[in-house]
């Protein structure tokens, strides 16, 4: 059992998400930065899809009530165990009564905390992921509160404490270049609009959340109307409403929408854009579908090797 003394501003239970329900208007949810989440699970000897915590901007303070292992990954934040500094991207073994504090994100936005065994909440529609707007999954469909108790499932299998080397830790870049495939409505924008989108930096806005990353920068001008007949919104789709400013849709996105979409961020770069802090800038680079497939298989291959490899579902 884990006792939450202070959850931080928005901490939710997530696993790798619920597929198959977008046609009912229910998004997949799951971690925004799936790579950091999966590595946290591997560091405590869990399968990749075991449930852990995603914390936005600031981590939690909690006490272990039994022996367990934890790992903290994702955004860069100070971690202490009983007030003594402890590393991120490493297996931390806790005794009953040990208190862990995860501080504010110094670099990046989303911090992940995995516990050996995984958090034992009921599966809803096949997943333990929390969808906050729909009050679905996780712990009673909500963010954690002070005093919550998290039950851990029994840990099975070997656990070998380890710590990633600096070279193994995914870098958080100051101005990441995010790879996109243009379309499906790139033809609804002016040439200058698409050029502006691909040649200027865009700044992350504080209104961003798990539904979408809102950015500000040079106007992505429409050639004709910004509304389309509502259609499905893929992960990473970049909607551009009438104000010409891009919104990258993430894991808690609406399933359909009626704004033009200039491009789609490759799934391999969703975690990278999800770690960009408000005020920080990103650039977009267009790749074709073949290149996007290649980048995706590269991403999958590198993830398969990360933290000694993993057990998938």
């Amino acid at each position, binding site marked *: 059992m884990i006792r939450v003394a202070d959850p931080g501003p928005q901490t939710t239970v997530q696993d790798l998400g619920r597929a198959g329900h977008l*046609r009912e*208007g*229910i998004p997949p949810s799951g971690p925004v930065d799936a790579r950091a989440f999966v590595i946290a699970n591997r560091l405590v000897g869990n399968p990749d899809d075991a449930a852990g915590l995603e914390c936005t901007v600031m981590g939690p303070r909690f006490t272990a009530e039994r022996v367990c292992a934890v790992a903290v990954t994702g955004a860069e934040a100070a971690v202490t165990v009983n007030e003594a500094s402890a590393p991120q991207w490493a297996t931390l073994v806790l005794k009953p009564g040990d208190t862990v504090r995860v501080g504010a994100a110094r670099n990046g936005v989303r911090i992940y905390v995995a516990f050996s065994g995984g958090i034992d909440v009921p599966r809803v529609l096949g997943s333990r992921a929390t969808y906050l707007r*729909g009050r679905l999954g996780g712990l009673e469909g909500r963010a954690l509160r002070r005093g919550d108790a998290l039950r851990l499932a029994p840990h099975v299998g070997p656990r070998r404490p380890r710590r990633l080397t600096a070279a193994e830790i995914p870098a958080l870049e100051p101005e990441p270049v995010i790879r996109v495939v243009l379309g499906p409505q790139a033809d609804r924008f002016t040439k200058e609009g698409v050029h502006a989108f691909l040649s200027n930096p865009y700044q992350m806005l504080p209104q961003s959340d798990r539904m979408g990353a809102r950015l500000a920068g040079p106007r992505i001008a429409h050639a004709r109307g910004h509304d389309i007949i*509502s259609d*499905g919104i893929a992960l990473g789709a970049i909607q551009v409403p009438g104000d010409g400013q891009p919104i990258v849709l993430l894991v808690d996105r609406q399933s359909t929408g009626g704004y033009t979409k200039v491009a789609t961020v490759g799934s391999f770069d969703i975690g990278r854009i999800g770690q960009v802090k408000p005020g920080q800038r990103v650039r977009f680079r267009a790749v074709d579908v073949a290149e996007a497939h290649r980048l995706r298989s590269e991403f999958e291959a590198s993830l398969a090797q990360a933290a000694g490899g993993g057990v998938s579902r």
Partner: protein
Amino acid sequence: MALCVELGDEISLEINTRVRALEFLIQQKGPAGVVETVPSFRSLLVYYDPAQVGYDALCAALGALAEQAETAVLPPARLVELPCCYEPELGLDLVAAAERLKMSTDELVRIHSGAEYLVYFVGFTPGLPYMAGVPERIQLPRLTTPRVRVPPGSAGLGGAQFCIYSVESPGGYWLLGRTPVALYDPEAAEPTLLRAGDRVRMRPIDRAEFDSIAAAVAARTYQPVIA
């Protein structure tokens, strides 16, 4: 990864039927690599796993299925009856809509509840049905100023479309009434009630029946009428 199959560029029964038929064919034939599908008015978003199928091969497979996508392949539609209380305290725009249409509220309710609606797709928020079939006589442009908060269950008219809000959200449709039936219940085994292709009829009820059905819904003893 995902690709979008567009079957037209307008809102029409014919095009939407082809979208739903294509989705049904995909469910039946299970082409390699398809992970999930999302139907909408005139297109089908197809999520796929590029490790299992290449882009060109998938386009070819979907193109072949799209040629067979017509009404005949669809299974018979369900008919869902939803009780709806058309009283001004719940149908916040009922009086204004009737005035704008130059008819009595009774006549507006009679026409609205006399029609049969077709769910083109479910989306935006969990369980929200986008429906067609609004009689021309009661079509209205959307509200000029959308409401910030529309209560769940509100039955709204916007142009040729009819929707029922499934969760509290902003909205720009004219609210004629409210159903006590939950279109989205995160604690139910099947959280969403309606599916693309369902036919829907509204049955007028008074406030007392609204309250008693709402209580049964809250107690999880209410069974929606589905034929």
